C-alpha cells in the first residue's frame, strides 16, 4: 500500500479548494468581460470611424474628428446642461422627500411595516410604463393633477420650461422611496443613548438633528445620493416616454437618437465615450467625498 499524498487525498474528498474557487469565480468574470469590456473596446474602435450601422459601407478611420465635432457642438452642450439641471432637481427632491419620510417613519407609528412596504410601490414600477400613465395624470384637459391642485388648464408637458420639472416630479415620486429605505436603515442604526444624553443636556430638537442625527446618517445618505445621481444621469425611458421637447432632451436621449434613429454609429460611439468618462469622473468625486464623510 502506498501512502496517499495530500493531493490525491484532496481528490478523494471531492474537488480541491482551488478548483472550486476557479469554478465559482471564473465564469462570472469571463461573462462580465465578454459582455462589458469587449463591447466597450468595440465601440472605442468605432468611435474613431464614420461607420453607419444602417449601411454596408465599410468604416473609414477618421481619427479624433468625431470627438472634435461633438465637443464643439453647442447642441451637445445644451443636452449636457439639461441633464445637469435634471439631475440636480430630481436628486435634491428625492433626498428631501425620502429623508423627510424616513424621519417621520422613524417613530412609533401604527402599521409601520405595511406603510413602509406600500410606500415602496412606486419603485417597483416600470419607468417607461409609469411615465406613460403620468401623461394622463398631467393632461391639461382631463388630468387629475390639475383638477386636484385647482390649476385649470395648466400645461405641464407642453410648456418647454415646465416639462423638465414635470419629468423630475415623476422621478422624485418613483425614487424618493429608495432614499427613504436607505435613510431608515441609517436612522435605525443611530445608537439610542446619544439621544438620551442629548435629552439630559436639554439640547433642542434642531441641535440634536444637526449634531447627532444628520452626521451619523450622512454616509448612508451619501450612498443613496451616489446611486440616484448615477441613475438620474442615465435617465432615458422616463423622459423619452413623457416628452419630446427639445428642452427635455437629456444626454441619453440624444445618444439614443444619434445611434438608432440617425444611425451615426461612429459618432454616437464617441459621444458614448464622452458620457462614460463623465459618469466615471462624477462617481469618483462622490466616492472621494463619501470617504471624507465616513472618516469624520
Amino acid at each position: 500500500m502506498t501512502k496517499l499524498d495530500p493531493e490525491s487525498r484532496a481528490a478523494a474528498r471531492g474537488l480541491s479548494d482551488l478548483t472550486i474557487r476557479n469554478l465559482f469565480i471564473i465564469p462570472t468574470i469571463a461573462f462580465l468581460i465578454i459582455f462589458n469590456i469587449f463591447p466597450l473596446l468595440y465601440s472605442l474602435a468605432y468611435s474613431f470611424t464614420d461607420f453607419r450601422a444602417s449601411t454596408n459601407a465599410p468604416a473609414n478611420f477618421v481619427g479624433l474628428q468625431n470627438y472634435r465635432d461633438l465637443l464643439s457642438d453647442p447642441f451637445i452642450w445644451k443636452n449636457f446642461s439639461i441633464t445637469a439641471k435634471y439631475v440636480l432637481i430630481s436628486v435634491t427632491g428625492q433626498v428631501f422627500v425620502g429623508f423627510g419620510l424616513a424621519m417621520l417613519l422613524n417613530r412609533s407609528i401604527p402599521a409601520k411595516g405595511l406603510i413602509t412596504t406600500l410606500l415602496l410601490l412606486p419603485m417597483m414600477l416600470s419607468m417607461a410604463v409609469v411615465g406613460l400613465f403620468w401623461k394622463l395624470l398631467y393632461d391639461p384637459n382631463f388630468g387629475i393633477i390639475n383638477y386636484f391642485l385647482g390649476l385649470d388648464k395648466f400645461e405641464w408637458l407642453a410648456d418647454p420650461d415646465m416639462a423638465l420639472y414635470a419629468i423630475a416630479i415623476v422621478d422624485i415620486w418613483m425614487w424618493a422611496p429608495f432614499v427613504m429605505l436607505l435613510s431608515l436603515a441609517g436612522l435605525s442604526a443611530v445608537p439610542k443613548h446619544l439621544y438620551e444624553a442629548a435629552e439630559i443636556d436639554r439640547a433642542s430638537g434642531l441641535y440634536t438633528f444637526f449634531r447627532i442625527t444628520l452626521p451619523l446618517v450622512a454616509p448612508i445618505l451619501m450612498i443613496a445620493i451616489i446611486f440616484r445621481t448615477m441613475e438620474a444621469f442615465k435617465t432615458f425611458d422616463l423622459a423619452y416616454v413623457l416628452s419630446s421637447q427639445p428642452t427635455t432632451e437629456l444626454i441619453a436621449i440624444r445618444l439614443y437618437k444619434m445611434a438608432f434613429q440617425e444611425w451615426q454609429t461612429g459618432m454616437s460611439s464617441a459621444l458614448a465615450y464622452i458620457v462614460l468618462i463623465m459618469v466615471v469622473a462624477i462617481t469618483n468625486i462622490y466616492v472621494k467625498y463619501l470617504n471624507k464623510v465616513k472618516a469624520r
Partner: protein
Amino acid sequence: MAGVRTPQEKWTNRVAIVAVFVALAIMLTPIYWIAATSFKPRNLATTIPPTVVFQPTVSPFVKLFTKRSQLRDQPSAEEYAAAPWWEQMVFDGGEKVVRNGKTGEVRSSGYGDRFTNSLIISIVSTILAVSMGTLTAYGFSRFKVAGEDDWLFFILSTRMLPPVVVAIPMFLMYRVVGLNDTHLGLIILYTAFNLSFSVWIMKGFIDEIPREYEEAALVDGYTRMQAFFKVVLPEALTGMAATAVFCFITAWNEYAFALIMTNRNAQTAPPYIPSQVGSGLPDWTVIAAGTLLFLIPVAIFTFLLRNHLLRGMSFGAIRK
C-alpha cells in the same frame, strides 16, 4: 426614538402620524388611479371632474388582449346575441374583435405574448444572476484571490455604464451573432446587468456566515462542495431572496435594451405598452389595464419576499 413622554411630544407624534398618512395618500394616488382607470368604460376615463364612483367593467382587459377594429355597421341582433360576453363588450364600445379570415380565430393584440416574454426573460435572468452571483460571492469570501479588491471594483464598475452606451456595441455584436430579437439575447444582457449587484450584495451576506459552520462540516467528512450546498447555502437564503427581488424588478422593468434589441419575437411589455398610444386619441383604459396587469407579478413577488427585502436592504446598507 425615545418614548413619548411630555404632552408636547405626544402632540408632535400625532402630527407625524397625520403627515405619514397624507404622504401615503399622495404617493399612492397615481397607483390607485391606474387601478381605477383600468376598470372604467372608455368614456369615463377622461372626465372632469374625475369619475370616482362608477360601475366597474372588465372591458379594458378584454380589449387589451384582442385585436380590434372600428365597427362600421352595427352588428345584427342575432350576431350580437350569438357572440360571447366579452365580444359583446367590444361591440358596446363601438368596435369589433378581428378574427382570422379562414379559421375564425380571434386575433390577439400581442400583449399576452409580450407579457409571457417578460416573464420568461425576467425569471431566467434573475435565477442566473442570483445563482452565479452567490457562487462568485462565496469564492471571493472564502478563498484567497489575487487582486480581490480590484476584481470586486471591476465587477461593480460594470454597473456604472449608462445602458445606451453599452447598447450600441451590443447591438452590433448581437447582429453579427444573430442574438437580436431573441429571448436568449435579452436574458444574457439582463443577467450581465444584474450580476454585479448580485455579487456585491451576496458577498456581504456570506461574509457574515461564520466559517466555523463549514469547518465543522468538513471535519464531519463533508466535501467542500457538500459543505457549501448543505451548510452555507441555507444560511444565505435571505440574502438571495432580497437580491432576487432587486434583480427581478430591474429585469422586469427594463426599457432601453428591450426597445433597441427586440422587435416582434422577443419584445417585452415595457416598450410595447407605450407603443400602443399611437397618434390618435389613446384609449387610456386599455393602457391602464396593461399597466396594472404588468405591476401585479412584481408586486406579488416583492410582497412575498418583503421581510427578506427590508432585512436584506438594511443589512447590506449598514455594512457598507
